[in-house]
């Protein structure tokens, strides 16, 4: 398949007339907004990649007069820091996105769940929010937003654990179904969207879906903000068109000695050098919520994996068996193999365990631990053992 190459884009941080785009959206019907988002092919930018238009459509279809739009700003994936930048620079576009989503699904109340470590952003965010509320008042539209703070738990970025946290309970994922679109925050129909998704939606309304679909590929429309870190001379935030290969990415951001790229953070996939050329960054290849970590040959992939597993063993909520105990077993297991206390073939048992965690864990956290584990063990087996 022919790929698109690497193209820098400036949509998310582009300054636009918020008043104008909101008025444009409010003149549309709910169905028209949803149609435009569906036509754009936008998939959630938090990592899971659920079609945003469908999420809004399902929430809109619920009869309950009380609904919520929740902005997930609990950016906790290791190596991801793009939502912080977006909130810092274009908070008004996030608010506008929530208002437009609210209009689309019939919600007049929004919550932003902000990562605890981002508390320092609040004073400026409140100033922006005050302006936004004034603006929406002027338009004469009934919609308001409140902030809720996280307290540092990674699991609270999982949508249903996030609801539990807002409701004042321990942040533990719920059983699904029911899905949030049917019963979410306070058991009301809820659409929960990532910060970047909401801003992208604003840009789709502004430019029209026909313009937006020109960017990206069939499975991965548009552009995406990447958080680039690790062994790179130019770490930071970059908005890139989707559809490039890892090779093209490394050509731009690598230090000439890149041996692996971890795409999608601790819960994502490790792509080794030999697969750079064939791997597309996007839903047809390796999806990402934005985290791109480059590793050069000075790095031990054992240490990388150990670090991720340590993180998961700590950040699992602990409620379900596969995740709570599985993470500890994977961590302790590679330690034993490294020390020579367990045979190297024990890694095969651990890979099987990772497969079980993928299918039997209650939520996305436990289900995705196997991604990093398997892709690192399969590609760097000798580094884990010796």
């Amino acid at each position, binding site marked *: 398949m022919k790929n698109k190459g690497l193209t820098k884009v400036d949509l998310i941080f582009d300054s636009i007339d918020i008043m104008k785009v909101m008025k444009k959206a409010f003149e549309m019907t709910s169905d028209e907004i949803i149609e435009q988002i569906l036509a754009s092919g936008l998939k959630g930018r938090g990592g899971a990649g659920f079609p945003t238009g469908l999420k809004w459509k399902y929430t809109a279809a619920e009869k309950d007069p009380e609904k919520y739009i929740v902005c997930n700003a609990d950016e906790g994936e290791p190596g991801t820091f793009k939502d912080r930048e977006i909130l810092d620079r274009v908070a008004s576009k996030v608010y506008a996105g929530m208002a437009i989503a609210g209009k689309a699904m019939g919600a007049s109340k929004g919550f932003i769940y902000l990562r605890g470590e981002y508390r320092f952003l609040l004073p400026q965010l409140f100033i922006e929010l005050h302006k936004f509320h004034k603006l929406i008042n002027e338009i004469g539209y009934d919609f308001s937003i409140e902030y809720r703070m996280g307290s540092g738990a990674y699991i609270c970025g999982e949508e249903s654990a996030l609801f539990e946290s807002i409701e004042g309970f321990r942040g533990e994922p719920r059983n699904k179904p029911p899905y949030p679109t049917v019963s979410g925050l306070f058991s009301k129909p809820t659409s929960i969207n990532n910060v970047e998704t909401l801003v992208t939606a604003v840009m789709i309304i502004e430019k029209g879906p026909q313009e937006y679909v020109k960017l990206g590929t069939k499975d991965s429309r548009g552009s995406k903000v990447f958080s680039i870190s690790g062994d790179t001379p130019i770490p930071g935030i970059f908005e890139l068109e989707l559809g490039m290969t890892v090779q093209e990415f490394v050509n731009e951001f690598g230090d000439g000695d890149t041996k692996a790229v971890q795409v999608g953070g601790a819960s994502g996939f490790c792509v080794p050098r030999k697969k750079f050329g064939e791997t597309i960054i996007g839903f047809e290849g390796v999806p990402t919520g934005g985290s791109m970590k480059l590793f050069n040959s000075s790095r031990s992939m054992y240490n990388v994996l150990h670090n991720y597993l340590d993180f998961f063993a*700590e950040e699992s909520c*602990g409620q*379900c068996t*596969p995740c709570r105990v599985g993470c500890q077993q994977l961590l*302790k297991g590679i330690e034993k193999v490294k020390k020579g206390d367990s045979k190297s073939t024990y890694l095969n048992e651990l890979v099987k365990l990772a497969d079980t965690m*993928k*299918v039997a864990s*209650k939520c996305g956290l436990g289900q995705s631990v196997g991604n990093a584990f398997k892709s690192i063990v399969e590609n760097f087996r000798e580094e884990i053992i010796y």
Partner: protein
Amino acid sequence: MVTLKINEHEIKVAKGTTILDAAKTLSINIPTLCNHQDLCVAGNCRVCVVEQKGARTLVAACAMPVAEGMEILTNSLKVRNARKHIVELLLSEHRADCTKCYKNQKCELQTLANEYSFGEHIFLDLVEDHSYIIDRSSPSFLKDDSKCIRCQRCVRTCAQLQHVSAIAVANKGSHMKISSFHDRPMSHVVCTNCGQCVNRCPTGALTEKTYIDQVWDAIYDPDKHVVVQTAPAVRVALGEDLGFDPGERVTGKMVTALRQLGFDSVLDTDFTADLTIIEEGTELLTRLKKILVEGDNSLALPMFTSCSPGWIKFIEHKYPNMLPNLSTCKSPQQMFGALAKTFYAEKRKIDPSKIVSVSIMPCTAKKYEADRPEMRSSGYKDIDFVLTTRELAVMIKQAGINFMALEDDHYDSIMGTSTGAGVIFGATGGVMEAALRTAYEIVTGRPVPFKNLNIMPVRGMEGVKEATIKIEGTTEEWRFLEGAELKVAIAHGLVNANKIAKAVSTGKASYHFIEIMACPGGCLGGGGQPIPTNAAIRQKRMEAIYSEDMHMDLRKSHENPEIRAIYEEFLEKPNGHKSHKLLHTHYIKRESY
């Protein structure tokens, strides 16, 4: 209705049914662990995962509702592999010293291990990574986190059934554990010792504190005279641990077994249940008279029953302002204890210091109650050891008694005679019914106006029950009650008790008399009863209790000849001086954290 296929069998079930329940209708067993019929769905142990064709992941059968056209496989290779892993993972964080464990052969994890895990363990032992200390601080139960598999049944029980939340989940990831407020010992938090968590724990993480060995020692001590009393609810549940189906009345066999175990005197808590009715009924009528006729404002209405030690601790912690509303009567267990080392000792001419008083209770809070410093009015510890129904079953097994084949026998006399009113103490509404049977007759001179004395409005498993009894045709002494409507309420399970207590404390309820039992279903659903206990089993035990009542010759407490005798020979009169010394108590305000 929804049509789906489970293991290729097509079935139709109601919308909203879980896969687990749908499979049951086909007699397909899906193993579960965190699931409990009394509790909300958790879906966290993942033992019940099944394969849904077309789904990306396996699904938890306990939490997943059926959907049209769904195809489920409960025993595919994918399912078996995952389940084996899950059981192995649970075993890796569980201290499996099974042969030493109190729950050996009664452990749900062990049962699963039998099925899914044999040969060498796949995974590494994680128990050694933690420094576990067994919490022995509660007089009622032990909490051993090294055996905890984090299913959260106990947490849900404490919150959902009991509105106490003495235990909750703390920390996350590998440090996640079931803990108390600020990790304090269980004796120093708001815990009612009800044992509902113990009854639902699938492993040996929560077990009653056993006194089996101490009781054997007493039995074999030639210097000791060991008396045993059996609570009303034990006789309708003990059989479950010894081969019978739920609902079997085993009163006579139990008496025989206790005698064979070597107890010197086998007596009945039902006797002091009858005594409680006389004391508490008199107390209620006295309060009504003093408040309504004499305008005495120092007394409080409504009056709450005080038989349930879990409820007592609950109100002491949560509603200390309402302690004056509690009846001052001790529970039947403690009345029995006080009398065993006074009245009984006198009659049998035994030195009370040589008496060891043992009680068999459906309850773990009774162990705590017996330890209360107030419970020494005989001059000794009134009750020396409290055993649960389960512990008695263990002793019977230890003694090699073939329980199912035993002949029936009768209780010994002096404190062994009882009425149907005493028996029904074991069911929610029973104390109320027993009290009404007596109080109504005291006030009117006639039996309660219900067919066969069965006061149906106060019976049943509804969480909160209310009834109004109109008093007509009173005798001269009780003329002030003529035409009055006695309003009563009954709650079982502390979550329901809390509803009533809240309504009373905020002035939203106007009752005269309220019966509260800490456990769902009353004592028959107590924390010390056989495991499992669930709604269907509670129902069976309740039917057995009322059937026991119907089979008694005497069914009103005041007609118990031994009760009449004890007042003539020893106590003099209800609520009299001696009664107050031996049969009544006081309560303490406790902290609410």
